[in-house]
C-alpha cells in the first residue's frame, strides 16, 4: 500500500456564509417575527382587557392588594380621599385600596386588583389636599381606562417575546425593553386619566383649584429632587401638553380655579 501525502484543497466542514451576512439575516428575521408576535399579542391583550370583568380581576390579583398590609394614619387619609373621589365614578366596579410605599421618590401607581400605591415622598411634597386628590384621581382614571391591566399584559408579552428571541445572547436588552413597555402608559392613556381625575376633583370639591400644582411644581423641583423627579418622569411623562390640556378642559367646563385650598394633614 502506498501513502500519498496530500492536503485537501478546501474545507468541506465549514459553511462559507459570511458571519456578518448571517447575523444580518437572523437579526432581521427575528425582529420581524417578534414584531408580528408582539402586535398579535397586544391585540389579544386589548381584547382581554375589554372583556375581563373587574370582579375577575380582583379575584385574580386580590392577593397583591392583601400583601400591602394594614393601613396606617397616612394611607388611611389618602384612602379617605380616594373613597370620596371614587363615589363620583358611577358604576365603579373596583374596591380601591390605597397603600403608602416608603420611598423618597415622587410617584403613584395603579396596580391590578384595585390597589393604588403612593410613595411617602409624594405625600410629603403635596401642599394641599386638592393637589393630592388630583394625583389620586388620576390613578383612579387609570382603573377606569383599565390601563394597569393593559400595561401588565404588554409588559409580560414583551418580556416573553424578547426572552425567546435573545436566548443566550445579549442579556441587557430584554429587561430594558420590557421595563419600558411595562412602566409607561401611553400619552393618550395619561391624558384620559388626567381628564377623569380632574372631573372627580371637580365633582368632589366643586372647583379644581390647585389640581395642577403638582405638575407646575415639578420643573422647579427638578433642582432640589434630582433623581426623585426622574422617577416620576419615568412612569408619568410630564409634558407641557398635559398641563395645557387640563387648563383647556377647566376653561371649557367653566370650572373654578380661585377657591381656597384645603390644607393637608398627613403627618402620623
Amino acid at each position, binding site marked *: *500500500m502506498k*501513502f500519498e*501525502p*496530500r*492536503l485537501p484543497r478546501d*474545507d468541506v*466542514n*465549514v*459553511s462559507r*456564509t459570511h*458571519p*456578518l451576512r*448571517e*447575523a444580518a439575516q*437572523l*437579526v432581521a*428575521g*427575528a425582529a420581524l*417575527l417578534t414584531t408580528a408576535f408582539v402586535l398579535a399579542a397586544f391585540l389579544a391583550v386589548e381584547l382581554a382587557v375589554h372583556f375581563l370583568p373587574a370582579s375577575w380581576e380582583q379575584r385574580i390579583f386580590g392577593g397583591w392588594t392583601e400583601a400591602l398590609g394594614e393601613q396606617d394614619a397616612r394611607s388611611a387619609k389618602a384612602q379617605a380621599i380616594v373613597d370620596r373621589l371614587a363615589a363620583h365614578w358611577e358604576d365603579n366596579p373596583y374596591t380601591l385600596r390605597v397603600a403608602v410605599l416608603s420611598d423618597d421618590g415622587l410617584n403613584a401607581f395603579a396596580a391590578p386588583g384595585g390597589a393604588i400605591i403612593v410613595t411617602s415622598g409624594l405625600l410629603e411634597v403635596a401642599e394641599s389636599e386638592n393637589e393630592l386628590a388630583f394625583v389620586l384621581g388620576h390613578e383612579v382614571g387609570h382603573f377606569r381606562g383599565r390601563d394597569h391591566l393593559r400595561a401588565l399584559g404588554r409588559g409580560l408579552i414583551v418580556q416573553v417575546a424578547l426572552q*425567546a*428571541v*435573545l*436566548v*443566550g*445572547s*445579549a*442579556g*441587557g*436588552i430584554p*429587561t*430594558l425593553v420590557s421595563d*419600558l413597555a411595562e412602566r409607561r402608559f401611553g400619552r393618550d392613556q395619561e391624558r384620559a386619566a388626567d381628564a377623569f381625575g380632574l372631573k372627580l376633583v371637580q365633582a368632589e370639591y366643586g372647583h379644581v383649584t390647585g389640581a395642577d400644582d403638582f405638575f407646575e411644581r415639578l420643573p422647579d423641583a427638578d433642582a432640589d429632587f434630582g*433623581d426623585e423627579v*426622574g422617577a416620576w*418622569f*419615568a412612569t408619568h411623562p410630564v409634558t407641557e401638553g398635559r398641563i395645557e390640556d387640563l387648563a383647556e378642559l377647566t376653561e371649557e367646563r367653566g370650572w373654578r380655579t380661585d377657591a381656597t385650598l384645603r390644607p393637608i394633614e398627613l403627618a402620623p
Partner: protein
Amino acid sequence: MEPWVEPAIRLGFPLFLLVVTYFIGSAVERRHQRDLQRREQRSRNLPALTFQTPPEDWQIEESALVTGSVVISIDYFKRFLAGLRGLVGGRVASYESLLDRARREALLRMKERAFDSGFGAVVNVRLETSRLASSSRRGQGTSGVEVLAFGTALKLSRA
C-alpha cells in the same frame, strides 16, 4: 444622572461587545487558520490513519499511545449568532469554523507529538469531544469544548 443614561449603557454595552468581539474573533480565527495550514503542510508526510490493524507487511519496531488535545471557547459574537440560529434552526455556521479548527489543532498536536518522539505513522486515530460545564451558571451552559485526538503511533522499519 439623566434618565437616558442607564438605558443607553444597558443597550450600548452589549452592542459594543458584539462589535469588538466580532473583530477580535475574526482576527484570531484568520491567524489560527494560517497557522494550521502551515503546520498541516509541514506534517503531511506523517500519515494519521484510522485503521485498527496495520497492514500485514508493515514491520513495526515500536508502538505507543499518542494524544493531542485542545480546549476552545466561543466568543461573544459567535454565541450571539448561534443563539439567534437556535431560534429557527439550521446549520450553526458560527460554530462550524470553530470546531473545525479545534479538530485540526488536536490532530496536529497528536501528529507533532508522534513526530517529536520519532514515530513515522499513527494508526487507529480517534476523535473525542467533551463539554466543559460552565461554573457560573450551576453547570448549565457551556464554558468550552475539549477535542481530543488519540491513536497508536508506530515506528516502522523498511523491510
